[in-house]
């Protein structure tokens, strides 16, 4: 009866253990329409889309495709129904060429590489995509990989496209390019569903928005009739203030001086190439760049986790070049690092908060035995001051939510009253509220005259919170500018390796 809908979900429910990831979700989308699915992390967006693409089975509820109620039992069923999913973490075989990945699992006969290549290039022309079909995936940039994923879906003649957080890994320019492609698909009568938590993107690309909150579909509105504040309110459940503070702190002494810093990958490639910058106490330096442009290498070299190849690193005049993390700390440098991989590098998931505190301090204890009492007191202090939700100081922290885990990590690092604090993607995977709590914590450190390096992926946030922005591209610094003087487009150009001042001529 609802033949006008390309895809319709009625009352989808899915539970994982005791968590209701989806709780009676209704959603529908038409052909020739771009629907945005908006929600915070953990609101059930990805679960819902995985149900549509046959990866999960719903516990109850029904899925209708072109008006027919169907059971999608596997990804191949979904493909057969013309549903193509582009996952947030690409599902590509790294060692194979783009071509092999595109035909992988497709139902048609094996064809000659030359005719297949032409077919792929024709498809590219039709939608304005660019790709080298014979390039191996592991040699590709993130946006090239995404193009392969899109081609995979188009090659199978999918008419319903689902994209899970497609812009998370793209520069602003690449995002614009992607949106052009999506609009073209819409013109050709495809139904496009885009999952995102970025409000501005929703407004830019979609026709309608369905908002999820805590596993429930709370509203579906026409994009033209809404705005950022209203979307945020229904996403979070109450009015939120979306502006990020940038407290003005007088710039202090140089806390970190980096000169000609170069570091190499194991294969000899330069991960950092001739970096020069100075970080002052009381300053927040935002580091922007496409994923893999050297942010990780920068953090790990500065903290002594990996060895620099050449150059100088000096914390308040103390030369730390070539020193390990333990040696740097022995030199009396108060340096703290919040890595992006919280449970991998930062904390031990199966230990409680108290034991995780001990990881940083046990060396200063005397004798062979550890004294847990100070750690327990410290844990309690952090739980109290950062409002961490936990059953107790000994509850394994992997059971906590992402936001609480991040608070534990940040709390522990701040407890050492660092002079330099390096944070990598501190709000990745956190909901809006917790993200703002983290921003506040960082700003508070800045007021305490801590020098902060903030590696981030959301350029809007970086522009708002940082004093200066340093942009990395392919291991080089393409610009260090005052954040107030930059626009998002400037940063995007620098991320792509260009000098943003060139755009006037371009």
């Amino acid at each position: 009866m609802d033949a006008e809908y390309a895809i319709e979900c009625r009352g989808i429910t899915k539970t994982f253990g005791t968590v209701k990831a989806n709780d009676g979700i209704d959603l529908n989308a038409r052909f020739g329409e771009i629907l945005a699915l908006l929600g915070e992390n953990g609101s059930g967006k990805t679960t819902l889309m995985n149900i549509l693409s046959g990866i999960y089975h719903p516990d109850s509820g029904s899925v209708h495709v072109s008006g027919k109620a169907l059971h999608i039992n596997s990804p191949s069923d979904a493909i057969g129904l013309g549903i193509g999913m582009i996952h947030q973490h690409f599902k590509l075989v790294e060692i194979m060429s783009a071509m092999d990945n595109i035909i992988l699992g497709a139902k048609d006969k094996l064809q000659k590489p030359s005719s297949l290549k032409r077919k792929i290039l024709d498809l590219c022309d039709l939608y304005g995509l660019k790709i080298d079909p014979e390039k191996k995936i592991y040699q590709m940039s993130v946006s090239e990989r995404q193009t392969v994923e899109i081609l995979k879906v188009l090659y199978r003649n999918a008419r319903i496209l689902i994209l899970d957080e497609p812009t998370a890994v793209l520069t602003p320019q690449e995002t614009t390019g992607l949106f052009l492609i999506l609009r073209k698909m819409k013109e050709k009568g495809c139904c496009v569903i885009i999952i995102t938590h970025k409000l501005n993107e929703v407004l830019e690309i979609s026709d309608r928005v369905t908002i999820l909150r805590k596993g429930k579909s709370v509203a579906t509105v026409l994009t033209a009739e809404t705005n950022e504040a209203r979307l945020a309110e229904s996403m979070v459940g109450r009015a939120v203030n979306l502006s990020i503070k940038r407290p003005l702190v007088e710039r202090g002494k140089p806390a970190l001086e980096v000169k000609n810093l170069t570091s190499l990958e194991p294969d000899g490639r330069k991960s950092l190439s001739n970096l020069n910058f100075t970080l002052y106490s009381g300053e927040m330096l935002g580091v922007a760049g496409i994923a893999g442009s050297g942010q990780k290498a920068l953090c790990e070299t500065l903290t002594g986790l990996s060895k620099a190849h050449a150059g100088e690193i000096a914390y308040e005049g103390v030369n730390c070049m070539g020193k390990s993390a333990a040696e740097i700390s022995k030199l009396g440098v108060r340096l703290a690092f919040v890595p992006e991989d919280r449970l991998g590098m930062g904390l031990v998931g199966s230990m409680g908060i108290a034991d995780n505190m001990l990881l940083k301090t046990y060396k200063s204890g005397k004798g062979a035995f550890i004294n847990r009492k100070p750690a327990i007191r410290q844990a309690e202090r952090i739980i109290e001051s950062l409002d961490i939700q936990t059953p107790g100081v000994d509850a394994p922290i992997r059971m906590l939510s992402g936001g609480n885990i991040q608070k534990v990590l940040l709390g522990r690092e701040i407890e050492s009253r660092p002079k330099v604090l390096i944070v990598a993607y501190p709000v990745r995977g956190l909901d809006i509220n917790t993200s703002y709590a983290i921003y506040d914590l960082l700003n508070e450190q800045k007021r305490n005259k801590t020098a902060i390096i903030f590696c981030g992926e959301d350029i809007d946030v970086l522009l708002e919170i940082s004093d200066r922005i340093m942009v990395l591209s392919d291991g080089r610094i393409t610009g260090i500018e005052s954040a107030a003087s930059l626009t998002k487009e400037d940063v995007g150009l620098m991320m792509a390796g260009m000098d943003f001042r060139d755009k006037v001529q371009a």
Partner: protein
Amino acid sequence: MDYFLSFIAAVILAGTPILFGTVGEIINEKAGNLNLGVEGMMALGACAGFMAGYLLGNPALAIAASFLAGAAGALIYAVLTVTFMANQTVVGLTLTIFGVGFSNFTGEYMLTHSANNTLKIPENVMRALGGLNIQGLSALPIAGKILFSYNIFVYLGIAVAIIAGYYLKRTKIGLSVRAIGENPAAADAAGIKVAPLKYLNIVVGGGICGIGGAYASIITCGGVWMSNSVNGLGWIAVALVIFASWNPIKAILGSYVFGAFSILKYYVPKSYIPAPNAFYDMLPFLVTALILVIASIRDSKENSQPAGCGINYFREER
């Protein structure tokens, strides 16, 4: 010259059982399953192949039985690891212990029930499985000996390796299998049926290992039952997979190189190098260890172990 020719011939004969094991294991690992039960599957094949030859007196049935026994062992492994997601390493090791034990047990049982405490395969079977004698060709100088003088297993092994290479590299199903081995989630998302293809590869690979076992029990032991006839060949095969960089064609060469090491003691005159026999017995394993070290230094994405190898795939994992 003659001495050298007979060395070459002996090398190829010694390498053949390893070749079967290696190709079987490559097919397993390409589908993402590290099956350490090669030794066990070879032992099962050794036992079944020998007994079929002994009891039924038919060479073709002996080879078929060894394939089926290896495949049956592999099926146990596949059920446990693919369907029940058991740890691949543990299941593989268990399969080895089971296979070797079962084979020796059956052999002992048959021995105690045999006429004069020996089990001997009938002469006609041994003749059929013996060296070729093609009119004209086998009598050629040099070429006759090193190309046309072997038993049927040798040619079967090379054929199986070439077919396996073609299957993995050039066919559509082979592409799907490689994708599963590299990234089962990607294969699944592309609509490939992961579990059935894993089963197929594990079982067929196991069967191929089984034929290698039959070679050890029938040819190497000269048609007389001996316990532990496989005796570590399966482990060498597991290491050879790495040496061959997961390529069945390269496995042909690799197996013969290892075959050479295992028979060196008969061909290096004691007067030249006065090394004890035990040293030569150790050689293949020493080289295996060296190869594992060298292979771990080699750093090529495309010629290395499939990325998903050893990890069970569960679609709904979060």
